[in-house]
């Protein structure tokens, strides 16, 4: 006869409420999914899910409005900050964020993001920098590294033909209306945890009405980089991080106490 031993089970990991219970279309090994997860965890922790509106880009995250369990919209390519502005101006008590790729934010949408910051627009932007256009099949992005091979930079990106990769966090940090600007990476667990803390700071800045906040996340695109997911993570660390150093680029005085509190 066996005797049953009662063990109290403790939930240590579950789907955040802010993440819809659906399968995503992201490729295996793509870190878009991780970015979604940590944003959703932060929205849960801040208890703002039911008053959050997310604006998706045109890019691989085109369906983010379906994956976040919040109100959502998909804007035209590059225009998410403009649509977010309209929403936030009318509903300042709501939490409004954009989620954008590097083509969406740093190419076609660079005017919108810069002007959102210059206005000190009280929104949060999650900027996924994977150094390539994922959705349209691996063309060169403004963030593509010199020498990086893409379908539209055969033989590697040439600085004479197409210039230099744009460092958005540094650029946005120079704008007075920016309250919190950081760059993080998703290539290992430690960095993911750091990224999550930065995302929380960014949303806290918004909740405290401090102005524009953006977290740039170095992310992978194994499909269009044509490498395995593991190699993709290694490439982020070996090639992207040196050109795109991680860290906080702008922390407004009023944001500092928000970072200490945790």
């Amino acid at each position, binding site marked *: 006869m066996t005797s049953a031993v009662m063990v109290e089970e403790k939930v240590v990991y579950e789907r955040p409420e802010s993440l819809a219970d659906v399968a995503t279309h992201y490729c295996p090994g793509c870190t878009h999914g991780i970015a979604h997860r940590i944003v959703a965890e932060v929205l849960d922790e801040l208890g703002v899910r039911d008053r959050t509106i997310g604006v998706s880009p045109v890019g691989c995250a085109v369906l983010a409005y379906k994956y976040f369990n919040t109100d959502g919209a998909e804007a035209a390519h590059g225009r998410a900050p403009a649509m977010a502005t309209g929403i936030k101006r009318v509903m300042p008590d709501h939490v409004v964020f954009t989620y954008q790729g590097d083509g969406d934010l740093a190419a076609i949408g660079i005017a919108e993001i810069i002007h959102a910051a210059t206005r000190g627009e009280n929104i949060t932007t999650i900027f996924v920098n994977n150094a390539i256009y994922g959705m349209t099949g691996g*063309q060169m992005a403004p963030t593509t590294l010199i020498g990086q091979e893409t379908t539209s930079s055969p033989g590697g990106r040439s600085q004479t033909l197409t210039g230099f990769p744009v460092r958005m966090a540094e650029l946005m940090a120079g704008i007075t209306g920016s309250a919190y600007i950081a760059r993080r990476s998703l290539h290992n667990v430690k960095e993911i945890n750091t990224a999550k803390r930065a995302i929380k700071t960014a949303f806290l800045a918004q909740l405290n009405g401090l102005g524009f906040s953006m977290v740039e996340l170095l992310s992978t695109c194994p499909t269009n980089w044509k490498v395995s997911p593991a190699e993709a993570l290694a490439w982020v660390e070996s090639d992207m991080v040196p050109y795109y150093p991680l860290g906080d680029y702008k922390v407004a005085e009023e944001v500092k106490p928000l970072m200490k509190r945790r």
Partner: protein
Amino acid sequence: MREFIDGAEAIVRGALDAGCDFFAGYPITPATPILLHMVRELPKIDGVAIQAEDEIASMGFCIGAAMTGCRVLTATSGPGISLYSENIGLAIMGEVPLVIINVQRMGPSTGGATTTAQGDIQFMRWGMSGGYPVIVLSPTNVLECYSLTRRAFNLAERFRVPVFLATDKETVATRTTVNISAYEQVPVRERTLTAAEAEFIPYHVAQPDEVPPMSPYGGPHVVRFTSSSHNERGYLTKNPADVEGLNRHLVAKIDEHVDEITLVMTDIQPGAETLIVSYGLTARAALEAAELARAAGHAVSTLVIYSLWPVPEAAIRAALDGVRRVLVAELNLGQYRREIERLVRDDQQVIGVHRVDGQLISPHDILQKGELL
């Protein structure tokens, strides 16, 4: 020799054979393959191909390059045409020759990135402020992607105007076997230039329908260019006579030469009461439908329109002669049907065959709608 290519490759080859030496564009499905080919091919002939930060900039690059004397191409799809609009207006105003490939996908907005459509037919013609004309050609297959691209370059030079090639996702992205010798060789029309010794009055024309010769930046003359209403010297003006002269000229240079632009294919059957009108990809279903109808004993005539804008009214009227009803097949809800409707007689009936569900119009759809089964 036979080869297995798609419309994108045929367009690129047509452009290169037409002397194209500048390309600028921004990735967008389903037009991206043209960008990718140009990025590979143009450097080989010392041309420039560059991916811009967006479509607004792409069209700006194109206008600048065209004014230096380059033969310029760009390629995009619906959302990109929306962003080109402002600068296409500039190209119309400054009379800049350039060729725009529109690989149509389903709209509005992002619509269906990989779904074929013919939804930009009125948009290409009327999508710019002011309503001044452009030229729009539409190929029905891969071979015509080649020949009409070549023709588009020539028309751009002849009329100093943006010329669209209205293609679609299926035609550009589907591979087919073509016989290389079947490519129609259209002679290259060189740009008309002002002689170095002659005085250069950039927009001087003796008659409204004339097209002024150009002079490139960096050439023998001082060249000025403005987006504003201007006089013949290219200076901004509000003088009513100058403004009216300019605007009437922009229309007359196209409208009074429709016969030079007109390109249609008619197949008139004796005694036919039905005419099937179509263009682009859908024309292939229309021609097949006509064959099937004839095999079933119905006399049916067909009209395929390659030059959509300016509307080849004389050719359409000629094809309409004698028929009782007209079937217009197109992948939209009747955009070109409007043009046909204004040309028919009161006793002629126009029936639209339309689809906007992302599927192609089949020969069967046309036969069914036309009660020709």
